[in-house]
């Protein structure tokens, strides 16, 4: 089987290499790909959308419809992970482990306690618990706000520099994942509950599609942001720039929430009680 598949793969690879013979040279400025459609984007972006980052302009405006579905793909993955993994039945052995906050003593309970102790006195921790590392926990705690600030910057500054909704959203999501990794999943869940995650991922895509539908309501084609000018008291070209900003916000929100949702479900096998 292995040899057979190796032979197949080498054969296919050989065919692919043969087909590169007719390719234009790598990096050739005169190749068809560089001459036919893309010059318009490069030369007209500034006057048509007033966005210096051409990639952002093409992504969210010229081909904004693709990007809407790209966000929907992320959303789909989040819903799919939830549907496949989430389970509400408790784990077979409800062993509970607590840490006495003041002394650091670990208490293990075989049965459910009659009354849940106050988290400020006895904090509940994972049962396959690793010793808390003071340095990692505190460094991450210090870093996370800055990471989130950077994520917001990336979303907001996508018009002028590399970045945009996806990258910023992933960075925001990663900051929450970092919290779950360095502290524990329960702490992260307290900061961002499951329902909030699920709602945000849907609302994010809804913002994108909603901006498009608003254009439809304004009598223009779907996602034609220039028609939003009268609503925002700007000229059509700035309306495009602002429209791109709004959809990028939606993308960021959806991507952040979905990344967190997928991570939570993967890391806890769908129980959402304790992570890695």
């Amino acid at each position, binding site marked *: 089987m292995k040899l057979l*598949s190796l032979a197949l793969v080498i054969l296919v690879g050989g065919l692919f290499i043969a087909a590169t013979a007719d390719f234009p040279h790598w990096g050739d400025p005169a190749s068809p790909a560089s001459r036919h459609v893309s010059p318009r984007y490069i030369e007209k972006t500034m006057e048509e959308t007033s966005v210096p980052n051409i990639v952002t302009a093409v992504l969210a405006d010229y081909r904004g419809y693709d990007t809407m579905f790209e966000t929907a793909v992320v959303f789909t993955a989040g819903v799919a992970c939830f549907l496949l993994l989430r389970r509400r039945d408790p784990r077979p052995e409800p062993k509970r482990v607590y840490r006495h906050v003041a002394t650091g003593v670990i208490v293990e309970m075989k049965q459910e306690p009659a009354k849940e102790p106050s988290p400020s006195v006895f904090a509940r921790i994972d049962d396959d618990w690793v010793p808390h590392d003071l340095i990692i926990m505190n460094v991450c705690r210090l870093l996370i706000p800055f990471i989130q600030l950077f994520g917001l910057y990336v979303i907001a500054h996508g018009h002028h520099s590399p970045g945009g909704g996806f990258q910023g959203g992933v960075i925001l999501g990663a900051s929450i994942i970092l919290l779950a990794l360095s502290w524990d999943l329960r702490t992260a869940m307290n900061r961002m509950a499951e329902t909030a995650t699920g709602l945000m991922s849907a609302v994010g895509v809804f913002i994108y599609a909603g901006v498009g539908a608003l254009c439809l309501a304004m009598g223009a084609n779907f996602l034609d942001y220039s028609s939003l000018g009268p609503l925002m008291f700007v000229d059509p070209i700035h309306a495009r720039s602002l429209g791109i900003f709004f959809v990028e916000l939606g993308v960021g929100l959806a991507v952040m929430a979905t990344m967190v949702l997928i991570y939570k479900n993967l890391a806890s*096998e769908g129980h959402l009680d304790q992570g890695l």
Partner: protein
Amino acid sequence: MDMTQYIPVLLTKYNYWVYITLMMIGLWAMIAKNNLIKKIIGMSIFQTAIILFYVSIGAKYGATIPILSHGHGGAHEAAVRAVDYINPLPHVLMLTAIVVSVATLGVALALSIRIHRRYRTLEEDEILSQLREQ
């Protein structure tokens, strides 16, 4: 034998050959590997290889990154020439493809966790033998 005549060909095409190599490595892993996580890694390599191909299409000698080199203000009055900037379209397409690949990855890992829940293993041959016993 004069090897120098091949160097121009090599220089203009090697990027495409490496993408094919990577793609075939990924494809081989997806077909021949036994462990499901390994297969999923192979799938990710396969997808990134295709992204590498697209990004290579966009490359342009003597051009800079596709961000116009001036913000607001009058500086952009000078006409922007297409040859000065790298083709942005493949980049846009590949942003989409990267996001699609992470979405596929999430679903694939979720499915593999479900499989592990039931069979307590991720080795394909062990799963198949358990299936046959039923």
